[in-house]
């Protein structure tokens, strides 16, 4: 797989927040069709990494390549237009707006004909129908009304809406930052099933998680992040959870040959 060209790649990424160096010359590769898990301690810089490759923060240094071509995302919208869909750790929903509004934020569907073309009227029935269908596909939604404001949902339900949005629209890459952190057992399982479903459609996924069993269950490769950089990349077949935890917490040195991988 490493011989292929990575679909999304970060090279030598650096991001400083004041005195903190959240990304310290970090590399990152995602190959077509794979599920890449990113694991690491709290504050290791995982969220910053995926923000840097998805346009939510501009790295101070380094470059991002999409299908081998250098890209310079200046906003999440820009990355999205290139087919990269991200669920951020802090979710990014507008609490007062409805579920359907949130799902289509920034890519609204307009009515056909005069109303849509000249009066730029939204096609609400179409958007609602689509949103309801996506939530049903996900199956985990105990949502009664698609026009309900997002703020009336529980944390788990919001998580579900965000994941459904990414899965519905991501065409090249889907990035999920701790998608199951706030979820119950049942809801987590649904999200994991969804991830496998998306993968079976051929879309590669980046999954950040602190849940080792989940990571080992799903991932094709595991990017171990430590102190702002990639420590190593391992395959779940080759190492145990114990090893992974040991690498990421610094209990064990990473094997030399993997550091370069």
């Amino acid at each position, binding site marked *: 797989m490493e011989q292929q060209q990575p679909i999304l790649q970060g090279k030598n990424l650096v991001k400083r927040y004041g005195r903190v160096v959240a990304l310290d010359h970090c590399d990152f590769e995602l190959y077509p069709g794979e599920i890449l898990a990113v694991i690491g301690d709290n504050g290791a810089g995982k969220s910053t990494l995926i923000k840097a490759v998805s346009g939510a923060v501009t790295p101070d240094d380094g470059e991002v390549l999409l299908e081998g071509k250098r890209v310079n995302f200046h906003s999440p919208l820009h990355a*999205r237009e290139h087919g990269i869909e991200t669920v951020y750790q802090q979710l990014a929903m507008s609490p007062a707006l409805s579920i359907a509004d949130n799902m289509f934020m920034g890519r609204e569907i307009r009515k056909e004909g005069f109303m849509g073309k000249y009066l730029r009227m*939204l096609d609400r029935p179409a958007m609602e129908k689509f949103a309801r269908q996506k939530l049903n596909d996900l199956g985990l939604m105990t949502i009664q009304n698609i026009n309900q404001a997002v703020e009336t949902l529980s944390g788990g339900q919001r998580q579900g809406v965000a994941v459904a949005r990414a899965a519905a629209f991501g065409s090249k890459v889907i990035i999920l930052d701790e998608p199951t952190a706030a979820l119950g057992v*049942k809801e987590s399982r649904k999200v994991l099933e969804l991830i496998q479903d998306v993968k079976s459609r051929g879309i590669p996924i980046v999954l950040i998680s602190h849940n080792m069993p989940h990571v080992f*269950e799903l991932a094709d490769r595991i990017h171990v992040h430590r102190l702002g950089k990639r420590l190593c990349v391992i395959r779940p077949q080759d190492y145990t959870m114990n090893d992974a935890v040991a690498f990421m917490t610094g209990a064990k040195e990473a094997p030399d040959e993997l550091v370069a991988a």
Partner: protein
Amino acid sequence: MSESASKGQDYESSLSGASQSVAQFEDTRKGLVHKIQHALHVTPSLVPLIVLLLSIVVFGVLLGSKFFSPFALTLILQQVQIVGILAAAQSLVILTAGIDLSVGAIMVLSSVVMGQFTFRYGIPAPISIVCGLACGTLCGFLNGWLVAKIKLPPFIVTLGMWQIVLATNFLYSANETIRAQDIEANAPLLQAFGWKFSVGGAVFTIGVVFMVLLILILTYVLRQTAWGRHVYAIGDDKEAAELSGVQTDRVLISVYMLSGLICAFAGWAIIGRIGSVSPTSGQLGNIESITAVVIGGISLFGGRGSILGSLFGALIVGVFTLGLRLLGADAQWTYLLIGVLIIGAVAVDQWIRKVSV
């Protein structure tokens, strides 16, 4: 292969039988009051509408035909037209969780530009009017640029802009008023918003029609277009909107520009209303427009409320002012009671929200 990387964790096997039904909570509370409260909660602009209708009824009963006549009621419309138009501009900005303290100043500068361009430089009135509108839009652009790009708080930006625009206005106009008679003779188009027509005993001006149409159009735009949804999203949580793909800077700048343009229209409207072009107009524009917006139920924290509410808010103040005057309250008492009204209206609003969530 790790021993745990089997399909699912063992304790999850029972999930297949889990209930898939929606959690249904019974609403055990019954009765009219709760139904009303719920309706009010769902349609926030209903609250000011009800306050408005109630106050019309109360003053109508107290004052009879003196108040409850087409003449008096349309007079209120005419009196609130300027505040109503400014409140529309203000609402847009407040919906994005901003505030615009420069609305009054932009209005008066625009009207001075329209007047002075026509009379000082002899430019034809239609062109001067376009220049005035452009001037308002430019001021709005500056506000928006500073807010969106330099990331300054809107309160500060528009506070500074208020002083700058107002001082520019006085310096540029040299405090000269252009008299109504001169305008009527040489450039009647400047007074277009003052042209009247009557339907029964009711007298309407172009300005009133403009105000109502403006609010209706903005209501449509905010509810039914993507741009409108983005305005709400930005007010709700700017960062979230940005992350979920809204071009926040662009939308913010467009909001402030539109607000400036609407203020410039208010500048045109005020020429119609007072006949002349006076650089001392509109000094209370800020506080009055904010009051209308707030009574109309738009949250100062952004993202919540309907622009229709602002129109109702402006009308409520208008009804109270005229009603109290007709009841014989003098200016100082009216002023005091409007203060009580502001607090009262928002308290009622809060109560309704609290009880009905």
